[in-house]
């Protein structure tokens, strides 16, 4: 099993005729994802990469039954695209676009919630359930179907971790890049909740970063509600305070969000915090591999925690 995307996922690509949209639509099709529609206002009625293009999401959903969208439209129009998808009945919107103004996202997260939809991102690689569907820009071949859920604020760092897992023959149920912006649609907590409930996920790897309080919130949630083993890596241990490290989210501000605080919070929640980024795969393998025999399987569930 998996969360959020699977074989039933029917993707509409917003901004399909743009450079990024084209490139990654091909990538998704190559992976076997059902890309059923594209939207570019003004180009309705044409086909692009064999996919029918519509002027509006409303038409795309009505004609193709799309239920998931991948947003590649440029920053000035991205918030609009996300809200259009939510209004048209799309339930899962992966917003890949980077560089969307903060103020636009304040509106967007509310509008998406009001419409009962979920946004992943923005400024994220998207999500993939290996062997089932890829909705985003991650390199497909490094993934491997399996039972570890991966959730991350980062892009290439996620690939690094997935690569380590797959090399050790540890497959993934679903890998989600939630994005590094200050305002995002789906949090660590949201994903942890879904992984905890997912029968196809046995363990969770969480890739955090310094800055903000998302990891601390995740830790609080794990402590109360997650029974499955969680492994974490937090990037930015050596980043100097107050300096911007690429991601808008990766700033240590106002005395919260530093590496030591995040590690402490996660460890207090029973999370195995891996310090050496080259050994994340090893850490997971060490805990999961010996317990793969049916008789010992139950022990992967930690004791003393409430399961929701």
């Amino acid at each position, binding site marked *: 099993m998996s969360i959020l995307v699977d074989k039933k996922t029917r993707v509409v690509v917003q901004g399909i005729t743009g450079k990024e949209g084209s490139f990654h639509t091909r990538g998704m099709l190559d992976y076997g994802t059902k890309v059923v529609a594209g939207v570019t206002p003004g180009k309705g009625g044409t086909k692009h990469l064999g996919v029918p293009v519509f002027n509006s999401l409303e038409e795309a959903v009505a004609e193709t039954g799309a239920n998931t969208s991948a947003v590649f439209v440029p920053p000035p129009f991205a918030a609009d695209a996300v809200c259009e998808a939510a209004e048209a009945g799309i339930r899962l919107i992966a917003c890949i676009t980077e560089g*969307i103004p903060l103020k636009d996202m304040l509106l967007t997260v509310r509008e998406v919630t009001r419409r009962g939809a979920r946004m992943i991102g923005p400024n994220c690689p998207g999500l993939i359930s290996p062997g089932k569907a890829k909705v985003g820009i991650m390199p497909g071949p490094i993934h491997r179907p399996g039972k570890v859920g991966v959730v991350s604020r*980062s*892009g290439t760092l996620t690939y690094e971790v997935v690569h380590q897992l797959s090399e050790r023959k540890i497959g993934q149920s679903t890998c989600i890049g939630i994005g590094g912006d200050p305002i995002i649609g789906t949090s660590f907590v949201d994903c942890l909740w879904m992984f905890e409930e997912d029968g196809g996920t046995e363990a969770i790897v969480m890739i955090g970063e310094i800055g903000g309080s998302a990891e601390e919130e995740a830790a609080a949630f794990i402590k109360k509600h997650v029974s499955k083993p969680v492994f974490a890596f937090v990037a930015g241990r*050596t980043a100097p305070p107050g*300096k911007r490290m690429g991601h808008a989210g990766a700033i240590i501000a*106002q005395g919260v969000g530093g590496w030591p605080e995040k590690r402490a919070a996660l460890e207090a929640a029973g999370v195995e915090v891996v310090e050496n980024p080259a050994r994340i795969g090893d850490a997971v393998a060490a805990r999961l591999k010996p317990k793969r025999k049916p008789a010992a399987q139950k022990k992967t569930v930690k004791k003393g925690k409430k399961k929701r």
Partner: protein
Amino acid sequence: MKIHEYQAKEFLGENGIAVPKGQAISSATDARSIARDLGGAVVVKAQVLAGGRGKAGGIKLASTPKKAAEAARTILGSRLSTYQSGGTGYEVATVLVEEQVPIARELYLAVTTDRATACETVIASAAGGMDIEEIAAKDPKAILRETVMPGAGLWPYQIRKLAANLKLEREPARALGALLARLLACYRELDCDLLEINPLAVTTDGRLVALDAKMNIEDNALYRQPRIRDLADDAGEDPVEAEAARIGVSYVGMDGNIGCVVNGAGLAMTTMDILHLLGGEAANFLDVGGSADAERIAGALKLILTDPSVKVIFINIFGGILRCDIFARGLLEAVRQSGANVPLVVRLIGTNQEEGKRILNSSRLSFTVDDDLESAAARAVAIAGGNA
């Protein structure tokens, strides 16, 4: 993007927020005449994009026009090192000469966006004049927060709460509501991510006057803020970081001796972390982004080589969108262009990694190529320490 105090105050003034009368100048002789116009006693303030100017000698009171000119002369052209400015400090090209305001009390007031609630938030404190971090460290309870209702403003009860907790008298309490409404409008219209008034003076006659102003405009929104973009001023910025911005990479200088070229911010930080873990130190954070062509890689290498302490360059690329073969070709070209003369340790993995390695290995240039993150990083550390 940060803008200077005097620029921020211009925007505040336009939005109806009281600021001291004054003028920004770049010549000491102008200081005298402006001080005269302002009635004699003035403040002379260095205009640099870093906090902590006061303690660093960047703010001087002058009781006469003559003393104002002297103060301006001292400050202009000097290099100002504050705790926020980094090693070499900023050269002061401009000073703001302002009237002195009769201050009864100094408050702290700021608007920012809280990521946890996804709401604009007003932060205030009766302990003005100190940095917010300093206030937070001394007495976290001294920091007041009010969340702004999305799409609306502060409710009157929130103003009443703030005024009561700031212990404002009747007059300034009344003025606070209007001030906050204007500040919030300014914050929204200019796509700020921080708008800080510190100190906000309560004057002896009960007015609220913004004595200082720090305005950060969100970079993602600069495309729709032409007035702000026109203010872009790299005079005060680190020239290396400015060049990085120009070629489209994210670069931050650090104190170590291992240059880093990485794709992705998270992986770039992680690369610094593993170097540290293995006993080395990065000379920089550098994220080349998702589409690194030869020119950009060359630019990145050149940037790194401006730092004389760099002993080795560690290249850590996870090919996703950026294919390893394309990166390898770009790297070869970039090394030629940049004339890089330090050892290069390359870890190149992901999409088309075999082809990428073949390209590197078959070139006449010498690279240490290693697939494994830890052993590659260890190699770089060893070279930097003179152990390889």
